[in-house]
């Protein structure tokens, strides 16, 4: 043990540790401090003001709406990306002739920039856009909507675009998980007379658990950090109807109210950590038991 400590010299960790600490950890810690100050771009002095920023966040209607929207976006995309991702993966794990082509098609949007997809969808989501025209053509004009300008649904629209783009990525992780399940289990189950739904529930789902865990965590954390989709599709509008935490931080940055902006970021940090840590502990426990 002692010998191995000497052999594996610590200095190989330093470059990564330094870059990561200076540009990621240090700002995070500094943010924790500045959340409790009245730090503004246009003022020289920075005063400690206790919980004032947080009080303001929880009494300001726009900021509250941004928090609510972030939560809606995260929940909707977690459910959508994972349910559809599992369904696609199970389908594309079957012996289909066009299997490889279909896998590539479903995966393809997730390699493109969120910017590209958001801009492509902008004209299609207008009230005279492609999507409403399709609804009208098939006699479903009652479903027509002002997708991006109706405050009541705009955050759902943004979530739908995100699901459209990234479900393929979740599908790929689920496919990798499915391929690590031995075929023998299914053969045994078939001999025992289990139908496909029964096999799915008793074999596929439990053995897919590592992939489900990692996907839940990735989609949840990604959902809470949402920024680019909203920034490009709506800019937070109409009015402030689709503001999320990420766009509020940009706005505070632009307005120079940096203390408030970092406080919003600190809240996001706290929310993500509180939700992700139990998932993490659960995953590590699984690893140990394996």
């Amino acid at each position: 043990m002692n010998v191995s400590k000497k052999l594996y010299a610590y200095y190989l960790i330093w470059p990564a540790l330094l870059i990561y600490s200076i540009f990621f950890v240090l700002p995070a810690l500094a943010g924790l401090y500045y959340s409790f100050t009245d730090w503004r771009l246009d003022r020289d002095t920075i005063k400690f003001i206790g919980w004032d920023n947080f009080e303001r966040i929880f009494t300001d209607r726009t900021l509250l709406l941004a928090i609510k929207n972030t939560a809606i976006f995260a929940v909707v995309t977690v459910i959508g990306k994972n349910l559809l991702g599992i369904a696609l993966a199970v389908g594309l794990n079957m012996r289909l002739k066009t299997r490889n082509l279909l896998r590539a098609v479903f995966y393809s949007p997730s390699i493109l920039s969120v910017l590209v997809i958001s801009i492509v969808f902008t004209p299609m989501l207008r009230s005279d856009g492609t999507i409403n025209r399709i609804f009208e053509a098939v006699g479903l004009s009652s479903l027509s909507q002002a997708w991006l300008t109706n405050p009541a649904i705009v955050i759902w629209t943004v979530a739908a675009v995100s699901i459209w783009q990234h479900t393929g990525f979740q599908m790929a992780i689920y496919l990798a998980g499915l391929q690590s399940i031995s075929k023998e289990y299914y053969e045994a189950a078939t001999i025992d007379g289990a139908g496909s739904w029964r096999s799915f529930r008793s074999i596929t789902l439990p053995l897919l658990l590592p992939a489900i865990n990692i996907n839940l965590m990735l989609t949840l954390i990604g959902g809470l950090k949402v920024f680019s989709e909203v920034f490009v599709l709506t800019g937070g509008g109409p009015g402030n109807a689709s503001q999320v935490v990420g766009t509020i931080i940009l706005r505070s940055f632009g307005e120079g109210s940096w203390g408030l902006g970092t406080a919003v970021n600190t809240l996001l940090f706290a929310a993500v950590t509180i939700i992700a840590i139990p998932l993490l502990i659960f995953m590590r426990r699984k690893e140990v038991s394996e």
Partner: protein
Amino acid sequence: MSFTRKMAWRNYLVEGFLILASLLIILPLLIMLFGSFMTSSEVLRFSLRLPQQWQFSNYTEVFREGGLGRAFLNGMLITSVSSILNIFTSSAASFILVRRETKMSGFLYMFFFMGLIAPMSTITTIRVVQWMGFYGSITSVILIYASLNTAFSVFLYSGFIRSIPKALDEVAFLEGANTFGVFFRIVTPLIVPVNATVAIMVFMSVWNDITIPLYFLTDSSDWTMPLSVYNFYGKYSRDWNLIFADLVLTSLPVLILYIFCQKYIVSGLTAGAVKG
């Protein structure tokens, strides 16, 4: 016999349904692609049809007006340097983290792992970079990308290096090699596939990102392609044919990378996500 026939029917049904569903993915992308070759009035219907006349000139015009040559080079510089930097630092760190089985290395692994979860603190990062005196520079953006991707890369490398038998390094140590030598001569050749995965993942996420350039690149001559496209989108909001051509151009590098490196993406996802 009847059983396999039933299976075959079910497969056809699933296949038919998935092909229909895939149209939902293909159609918007084709609207963009075909639209990029249309005239500015023809494109405004935003429906799926072939251009009456293929306007290849859209692409040359976008390249000139959007200043894309410069943005392309900026993007290439930023993505390649931050990927290479990230590969070197993360793989070296993971090697030690995995091999030294001490409390400290366990703690440091969690310390890095937190980076997968915690959101970046943008405003204070700007402050740190300002304080160090290079806010607004390409160098700052490269270092920030390298740091943002450290957590994910350490996660991938650790999983993989753990599967390399320790006996291999021990032999080398007995022959008198030092840590540095063992890492470069024994471990580095073995982790080439992970290097490829990390390179591709970092390349794709950095190339596609608009957030960091938006906050950190104050001078538009340093912008990467997607940010230039965003700027162009604001200015030429009526010429959708040019906007679409712009979008296609900024997507080309990742598409080409994807086509050539598919197997590394899949193997990386398997190693990192499912086994790790």
